């Protein structure tokens, strides 16, 4: 009897291990696949001509994606400027001020926000944000500003949930110590809680950036997809993800390889962001 249950236990353990490792396998396959498809063009055209090139005309032999790299970072920082203060405020409210009942109401609402498909965000952007920007600020409305607003809302759940976890993991004793010194609630939050949770909060911003830079559908719908680097917040722009999704359907030969090279650059950027975010979180745990 004992032996039987032991083998069963082992069996379950191995099955679960296999499934756990399969996710690693998928990651590896995706990585290998993108590099396999994307690297030949880097070798053929040259790294600098792709990464630092200004002209994207793949059917005419130009594969410069520098404007898209810049644009991707611009919308990402735009999203952060809008999403970070809102998200952090919400996380502070949730962890420090809200009562249990309010929390019970807000938390599921935020999870719902995270679950809304990005095409819906894009659609709302096209129907409401774009005409608002066009009518009140000028330009076509398909712009850096509209995209940043939508992405700023889209990264809220990421920022809120991770900052919230960071804030709640600050020990109670820190707060009590601060109150005992005569600090007010806001002074405690501002001087004690936030600095203690700093690395977690930064990690939430960086993971939010990762979400924003990887977002595709909503961005294609509202960014306007022009190839030039935007000079004002009302100019249209094209991101790396947008470039891939926009042109893949029609691409063949070197054009298709060029899109995979775009994917390689995107992969590297996202890996760097995730590495920074994980590094930030780990440091907090050690501390």
């Amino acid at each position, binding site marked *: 009897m004992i032996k039987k249950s032991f083998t069963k236990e082992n069996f379950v353990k191995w099955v679960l291990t296999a499934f756990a490792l399969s996710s690693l396998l998928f990651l590896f396959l995706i990585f290998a696949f993108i590099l396999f498809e994307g690297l030949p063009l880097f070798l053929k055209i040259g790294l600098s001509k792709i990464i630092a090139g200004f002209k994207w005309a793949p059917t005419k032999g130009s594969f410069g994606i520098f404007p898209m790299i810049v644009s991707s970072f611009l919308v990402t920082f735009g999203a952060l400027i809008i999403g970070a203060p809102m998200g952090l405020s919400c996380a502070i409210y949730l962890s420090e001020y809200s009562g249990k009942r309010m929390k019970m109401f807000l938390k599921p609402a935020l999870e719902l926000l995270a679950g809304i498909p990005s095409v819906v965000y894009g659609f709302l952007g096209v129907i409401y944000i774009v005409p608002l920007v066009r009518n009140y600020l000028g330009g076509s409305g398909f712009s850096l500003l509209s995209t940043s607003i939508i992405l700023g809302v889209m990264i809220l759940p990421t920022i809120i949930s991770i900052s919230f976890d960071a804030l709640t993991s600050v020990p109670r004793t820190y707060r009590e110590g601060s109150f005992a010194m005569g600090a007010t609630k806001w002074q405690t939050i501002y001087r004690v809680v936030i600095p203690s949770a700093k690395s977690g909060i930064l990690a939430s911003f960086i993971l939010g950036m990762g979400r924003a830079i990887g977002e595709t559908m909503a961005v294609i719908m509202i960014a306007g997809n022009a190839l030039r680097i935007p000079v004002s917040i009302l100019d249209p722009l094209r991101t790396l993800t947008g470039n891939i999704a926009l042109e893949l359907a029609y691409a*063949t030969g070197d054009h298709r390889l060029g899109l995979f090279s775009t994917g390689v650059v995107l992969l590297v950027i996202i890996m760097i962001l995730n590495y920074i975010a994980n590094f930030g979180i780990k440091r907090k745990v050690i501390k």
Partner: protein
Amino acid sequence: MARIIGILSLAVIMFLSCTNGPGKEGRRGKKHTITIAGSTSVMPFTEKLAEHFMIDHPSTVVDVQGGGSTAGIQACLNRTVNIGMSSRQLKDAEMVLNEIIICYDGISVVVHPKNPINGLSLKEISDIFHGKITNWSQLGWVDRKIDAITREEGSGTRGSFEDLVMKSQDIDDGIMVQDSNGSVKEIVATDPYAIGYISLGLVDQRVKALAIDGVMPTVKHIKSKKYKIVRPFLYLTNGALDKYAQPFVTFVLSREGQNVLKKEGLVGIHD
């Protein structure tokens, strides 16, 4: 880590959904399936034709898919579809396929209905898309930037527009890009200062088609060859068609099939 997987799996799903072709021999009960894929400009018309065809041929299922001209040509070369659709001419390497011209389509340059401009010259249009004319005041309207919209690189409509309108000039990098006739039309219909180009068959009261060099894009003017921005819609086959696909092509080229296309605003091959 989870983020990387999420983003990449999205990319892979997108990639797969763009490239996979259906099985050629797919059968549903005793029904035979013809798969047709390619140009998103030709697709809506092929769907209409398929509807009519399937009324008279209940044992045949016509499966119409998009993907783009280039994808359709590729699928036809790989024999993953029976018929490929293209809205651009074949390149030299693709010439092994048989071309069947099913109809002609005008590309109309469209603006918002509130725009008072009724016509432009070919030169003015190529200057707008080249980035030389950037303000509506240069064309005698209000002092406001022109929101020009083009199609993405590789699109059949863009390819034809470049050949027929832009000639040797490049489309400017500052021009907005959309990936379907539908989204170009949607922007032009909602933005009073927009200008774009779409298939003539898709023009309705939500957008205003411009006269080019004084010639309105109408079926009559395309027939008489007065309107210049015209391209053929092609069906492509790789070798001989099987006995289920051949009747469909015959139907499309018949008077009945051509009438379906004419009702949609296209110009038939017999005219």
